């Protein structure tokens, strides 16, 4: 299926969980369609076609 990851379209296998999409647990955070998903919930958070996923980490900033 096709999803958006950090604004870019990406093809992922079906089914696919947020945990499978994002290999790391520490130092990153994710939002699915605008809703923040806690790390503990990633594995049982299934992605659907057209989902928008944001994966953030810390960068230099004021």
């Amino acid at each position: 299926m096709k999803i958006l990851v950090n604004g870019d379209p990406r093809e992922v296998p079906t089914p696919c969980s947020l945990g499978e999409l994002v290999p790391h647990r520490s130092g990153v955070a994710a939002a699915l369609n605008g809703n923040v998903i806690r790390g503990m919930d990633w594995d049982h958070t299934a992605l659907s076609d057209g989902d928008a996923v944001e994966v953030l980490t810390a960068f230099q900033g004021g």
Partner: protein
Amino acid sequence: MRIGTIEVTSRLWIGTGGLSSLATLRDVIDAADPGLVTVSMRRSSDLGPSGLIALLRERHVDVLPNTAGCLSAREAVRTAQLGREALGTSLVKLEVIGDERSLLPDVVGLVSAATELVADGFTVLPYTTADPVVARRLVDAGCAAVMPLGSPIGSGLGITDPSAIERVRAAVDVPVVLDAGIGTASDAALAMELGCDAVLAATAITRAEQPVAMAKALRLAVMAGHRARAAGRIPRLTEARPSSPMAGRAAL
């Protein structure tokens, strides 16, 4: 000073934006010995953690994620939540930007976002205007500190209205941290003399010709201003006052 659950010893806090390399940032951190270090939350190209996180852990500094660039309360709240997830801290420097050009805060959106984040268990440090009434509203909403701006972010204009910072100081009993506008050492010293508990410097350090040297200078300046306030400065007089005795002068 106490910020939420953590004890912050150093009164110089630093922002990390604008430096060319993490190596320089390491040296800046060592020179500044910062109480808190701010970071911003941005998209991870490889979906993994940044090298910055590793560096901050290596130097054992307390991190303060911000919501820089957020133009609405909703966006700021979500960014704060993502910062908490990624960095494992409930601290947040809350920014709700009201104008992309001046980067001044939207204080109405700020108060509502602060209220929501406090309810969600955050320790909220809002970037706000030097407005004592807004500051008190933020404290009433449960903020752990207030961070009034001295002048626009990155402008280096220092504190354009010192009396406003004094009013904020008088209005609240939580820590007041001067945020934005610091250009050089005397600005940082003045902030402390006005009663601030700490100073956050970003551009002043990161875009100085020699960031590490400026970090050291600001560290000294914050200490100087803090001690000067405690020492009780002389009053400002419109007249001169002799510093040598008038009595006992010779007839020559």
